[in-house]
């Protein structure tokens, strides 16, 4: 080795740690500068109901997929706002207090939509709609501002082991439920406190018109109980308290996943079945924050994309609003009514309807 080479090698041995430190510092400073120069992520606050945002719910899965897609440019903060009525109260309260609150609401249905519409970003001069809105199933689309992402068809779920005559003997028309063998065999949620119960009431009102009150009166003896919410009702059904419960056709998919495909079956009727459409909306709070408005619209575009819609069935036990989404095996061939009715009533119409119902079932 030449003397020069020796000197060079020695100096390199001595300086190696320093070089490493220098390189590290350069990277750190560079990284810091880069992150300082890139804009901070836009944070969107989303109000939704409890189970949507629960650890196994659709919310966390959707948010993480979206954040990954936008490479961290947009972050979603999910805020649990109780049930849909509490969610509405919270949006109203934020507005009264002039609080920024939420930028988006997720999980509102058609009945809540009519009461939340005034708080939604849907100015007449702004015709924005998600890019692929045309790919959504026709019956899920209500009006501009409401972006449907899933829906469920209400139906009676039967425990065929305990239903007299089994699945084959199940009625095919609504009037069939009034037969005497079905007395105290059905569980329906209280329409005043539950969305499925309200769906039943609004549907019977729309389909039967003036005869609805008579139907409710004759129907009351068929009901074993009217629990306050879906969860209590379904719990009682699975305990074997009654062989039928008012639920969704997708409940059958859940039981198929559990390997109980033959026992629990949904029945639909010739007159049709009501549906609940769940949607999202951007709130007016984003009007003063153009970057949030843009980000919120980007999220709604994502919400009805193939990628997001594929998450809906097994995460939310509902049907995707988009056409042509590949469904899991358990969701294929679910009962489909000939006619899907989407009942929509204004607040005052609902109040009146509930009053009529209360009187009818007491008489």
């Amino acid at each position: 080795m030449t003397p020069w080479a020796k000197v060079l090698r020695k100096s390199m041995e001595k300086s190696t740690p320093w070089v490493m430190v220098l390189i590290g510092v350069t990277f750190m400073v560079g990284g810091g500068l880069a992150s300082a120069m890139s804009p901070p992520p836009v944070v969107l606050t989303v109000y939704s109901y409890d189970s949507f945002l629960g650890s196994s719910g659709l919310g966390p899965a959707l948010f993480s997929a979206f954040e990954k897609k936008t490479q961290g440019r947009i972050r979603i903060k999910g805020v649990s706002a109780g049930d849909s009525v509490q969610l509405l109260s919270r949006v109203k309260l934020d507005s009264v207090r002039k609080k920024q609150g939420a930028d988006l609401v997720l999980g509102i249905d058609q009945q809540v939509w009519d009461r939340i519409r005034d708080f939604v970003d849907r100015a007449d001069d702004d015709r924005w709609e998600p890019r692929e809105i045309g790919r959504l199933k026709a019956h899920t689309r209500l009006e501009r501002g409401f972006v449907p992402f899933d829906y469920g068809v209400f139906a009676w779920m039967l425990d065929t082991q305990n239903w007299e005559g089994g699945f084959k003997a199940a009625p095919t028309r609504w009037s069939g439920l009034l037969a005497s063998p079905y007395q105290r065999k059905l569980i329906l949620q209280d329409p005043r406190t539950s969305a499925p119960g309200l769906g039943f009431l609004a549907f019977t009102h729309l389909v039967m018109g003036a005869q609805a009150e008579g139907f409710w009166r004759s129907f009351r003896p068929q009901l074993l109980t009217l629990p306050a919410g879906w969860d209590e009702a379904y719990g009682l059904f699975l305990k074997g308290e009654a062989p039928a419960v008012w639920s969704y056709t997708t409940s059958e998919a859940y039981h198929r996943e559990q390997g109980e495909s033959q026992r629990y079956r949904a029945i639909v009727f010739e007159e049709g079945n009501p549906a609940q459409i769940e949607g999202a909306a951007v709130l007016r709070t984003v009007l003063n924050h153009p970057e949030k408005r843009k980000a919120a619209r980007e999220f709604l575009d994502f919400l009805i994309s193939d990628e997001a819609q594929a998450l809906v069935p097994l995460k939310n036990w509902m049907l995707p609003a988009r056409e042509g989404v590949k469904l899991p095996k358990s969701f294929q061939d679910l009962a489909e009514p000939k006619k899907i009715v989407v009942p929509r009533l204004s607040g005052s119409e609902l109040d009146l309807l509930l009053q009529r119902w209360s009187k009818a079932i007491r008489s």
Partner: protein
Amino acid sequence: MSLLRTLGLGGVFLLWFLGVGVPVFGWLSQVNWGGVFQQLADSSAWSVAGLTLQQAFWSTVWSALLGVPLGLWIGGIPARSPRERSWQAWTFGVLRFPFVLPATAAGTAYLGLIGTQGLLTHWIWPGSWSYSVKAVIFSHVAFNLTWVALRVAEERSQIPAQLEEAARVLGAGARLRWARLWLPELLPALISSLIFVFQACVVSFTLVLLLGGGPPVETLETSIYSQIHLSGGDWEGALPFALLQMAMTLFPVVVSSILSQSVFRETLSRQRLRVSNGGGASWKSPSLREPPFDWNRLTATGVAFLIGIAPYFIGIVDAKASVLRDRDLHEAVYRSLRLILISLPVAMILGVGSASGVARGARSAQVWDRWMARALGLFVALTPGFSALVLCLAFWRVYETWVDPFEGSLLAIGLLQAIGVYPLIHRGLYPAFASPQTRLLDAARVLGSSPWGAFWSVEWPRLSPVLWSMTGLAAGLLLGEVSTVTFFKGESGMTLPLLIAHWVRRYRFDEALMGSLVLISLAAGAVWIIPVLAHKGSRMFRKDSE
């Protein structure tokens, strides 16, 4: 001592006004009374009130018919030796158990008995009674009869055996002994427990919802809930129901206080007599020899177990143990326990302050003390009459500048939970505070002891077991509390009862079952372990300090 007492009473008044007085009066001042009277004129509010009264009345009557004999039997079994006294304490603990159960767990258990697939439905309970007013009354009786039995048993066990023996020697038959000796002694506890049961049945919510079968079986409390839910938090529609409910819960208190003034006065003088005679189970000297084993005692504990504990474990025997490793469950348990650390001390301050204030005022000759006692007594009578839902809403509306349910408020949860529990603590502690060992206290002072020293060596050994048992009871009750937590939890995550409800909503029924078992076990643990540990700790501390 007097400064401490003044501060304590001031604290009780302040907490009550902050938690109940200001919200309720603030709420009433904002109401459009014209609309309320119009709603009150509607027959539907009165038909709901009628059904509420009917089920509460029959539930109270049946609880008394079954609870009084049971209490007399259990309380009449002598507890002379330490072993017998500890046996008695365990039996009383078993009777206390249903009170710490979350109503959801109790309701689920009753469904396992009287639902269409219930155990009793197969043998004695007609299926058509399931999901009806009869089912509501059954569940209220099953839930409350142990409380009546407990209060009667506690009072019965305090009647000195010497008094009864003396009456017998002097020729009093069983009927005369009952009328002249037992009844006057038991009456105040009996009336107070029956009023409590009646009020609990009027404001009962979960059991009516679960077992009543829905409309037309509706009570004032379930109507308040549906009105509030229907209008998205607007209480105008709920107000007529809330007013009728308040009137209904207050009515028996007013009537009983008017009718029984003389009875109470007589009882108080008897209690003084009892004290001066050195009576009371806790002051009996232990026998030198342990008495022989008593089958009657075992049967009594067995019966208490059958009605106090067994029904609540029937439905959950097949829960899956693997759920115990679930992280959500651990976090929910942690949150529930953390909340108790806030609300339990407040509840105990309120309960102890209120019970001691009323007891002292009743004995005092000073007008001011007597007025304070009356006011505190009125608070205890009034508070159970307020629906938890109404109280939460009123609290929010009045303090909305500082308290936002959506942001969450530990302060609101702590205060409102404590308000909900303290009447029960008051009722449990009052008999102990009402009969101080005045002669012994005076003797201790004459012998040179400081007021604190006299209290520590004379009163504390007598008060502490009751105090710790009420602490355990309150902790168990607070574990299962749902309404306040639902309203003011904000983003702070779910407590154990809320997690159970969440699991049910996600079809996770196995997890929900295990969660219920954990909740019931924790509540049971609180009822038994807190009193035992605290009592042992207190005795060790006393030994050290002596």
